[in-house]
């Protein structure tokens, strides 16, 4: 079983409107590289010039923010679910 990445609405234009995409990458960083090879342009939306995940992008593995894990080095195993979510306002 591969890993699933949920694609947020603002990026679906790049994924031919696919909401969920399967990847094989062993880490979040690998998964982003893999997404880029299949959907050119997606990486620069997620990662800045320095290679860091953009300030307003939140990435979760199985509902945990990768900043509480190992950021882009966070390992992925089969069956994991990755969500990419824009930061949203308070309430």
């Amino acid at each position, binding site marked *: 079983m591969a890993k699933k990445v949920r694609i947020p609405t603002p990026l679906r*234009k790049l994924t031919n409107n696919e*909401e969920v995409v399967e990847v094989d990458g062993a880490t979040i960083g690998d998964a982003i590289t893999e997404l880029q090879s299949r959907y050119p342009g997606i990486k620069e939306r997620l990662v800045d010039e320095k290679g860091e995940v953009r*300030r307003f*992008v939140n990435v979760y593995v199985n*509902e945990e923010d990768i900043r509480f894990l190992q950021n882009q080095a966070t390992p992925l195993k089969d069956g994991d679910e990755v969500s990419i979510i824009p*930061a*949203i306002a308070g309430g």
Partner: protein
Amino acid sequence: MGRGRFVDAEELMEKNEGFMRALKCRECGREYPLTASHVCEFDFGPLEVAYDYDRIKRSLTREAIQSRLKGMWRYRELLPIVNEPTVGKQVGFTPLVKADRLAKRLGIRELWIKNDTVNYPSLSFKDRVVSVALSRAKELGFDTVACASTGNLANSVAANAASAGLRAYVFIPSDLEQGKIMNSLIYGANVIGIKGHYDEVNRLCAEIAGKFGWAFVNVNMRPYYAEGSKSMGYEIMEQLGWQVPKHTVVCMASGSLLTKIQKSYQEFTKLGLVDETEFHIHGAQATGCSPISTAQKAGLDFFKPVKPNTIAKSLAIGTPADGFYALKVMKETGGSADDVTDDEIREGIRLLAECEGIFAETAGGVTVGVAKKLIASGKIPANDSAVLCVTGNGLKTLDALNGTLGSPREIKPSLREFEALVATEAKAN
């Protein structure tokens, strides 16, 4: 323009965008049409409403404002809807209270409380943002509104949606204070309790918003919603006699309110409604959820997300969406930040209540507690003047004070018993 109207309808309808120009990415400046959308497709930066300030300047004068109803919509040109407001027309213009007794206790020359504990209809500043978001949602043709909330926003969406005849879904952490839960249920909203903290509710709502075509006030309606907070700043300046306060202390959850207070001061200055003057904006957090104040104190321009653990549940956002911009505002204005423990929050609530007769929720205790610290450390100089933004009502967070206020002394309905009680207590003192 007659009394009782907010603004001349013809002026508004001149363009079908009102006084707005576009939605604009705060990061890269790319512009988008004025739809229900909140994120730049290129860098995920937040979208913000851009206005036509030249037209606003021709329409919005002190005289025009003063001729209108006393509510937040008297600043109509600076709020992002096209037609007249349809939801929350009576929101705002809450008292600005000169807090002499509290000033003495905190050791500052002059102190004011912007008292949104009595905002209409749901007793928090959130009625300001919701009034804008729901009026705009109706303009855009939505019939269902929703929000992710730490409590106050849920109350406000539920109440305002009820009065507007809109269907409402509110998503809250399931462990919220009973008062906040009841205050959403009573209006007939669909209240969904999520077994998790607010950041998890937020994440889920971002996913739900992508799937369901609703107006999520703090997701896809966020650019309009967030602008409503500016009205708190406009009112403060008008109520101070058209002046920008030297110091303003604002509590921070996502950090949005703090950034919008700065924007309100800048806009009034740009429009010539107040004189240009130096001002400082200070941020207040609870120690149990202090990603922004921790970063500010360490001199960083970015924050590290945290897992919240505080009685100030309305401020319990561990991944504050506007944290980066809040830090920038404090830096630009020479403001500072601090945070207070749960005990200091309770002490802040009591101080405000005992000195000024204002019962604030936990977030208000945070603001008062942090103001006390900033004054004591000289970051707000004792000979200056400050405004504290108190954003929500204490009746909603009674749980936080449970067992800390003692209980009433009970006696029989007998004068003799009362006299005995007074005599005993006089002896004890």
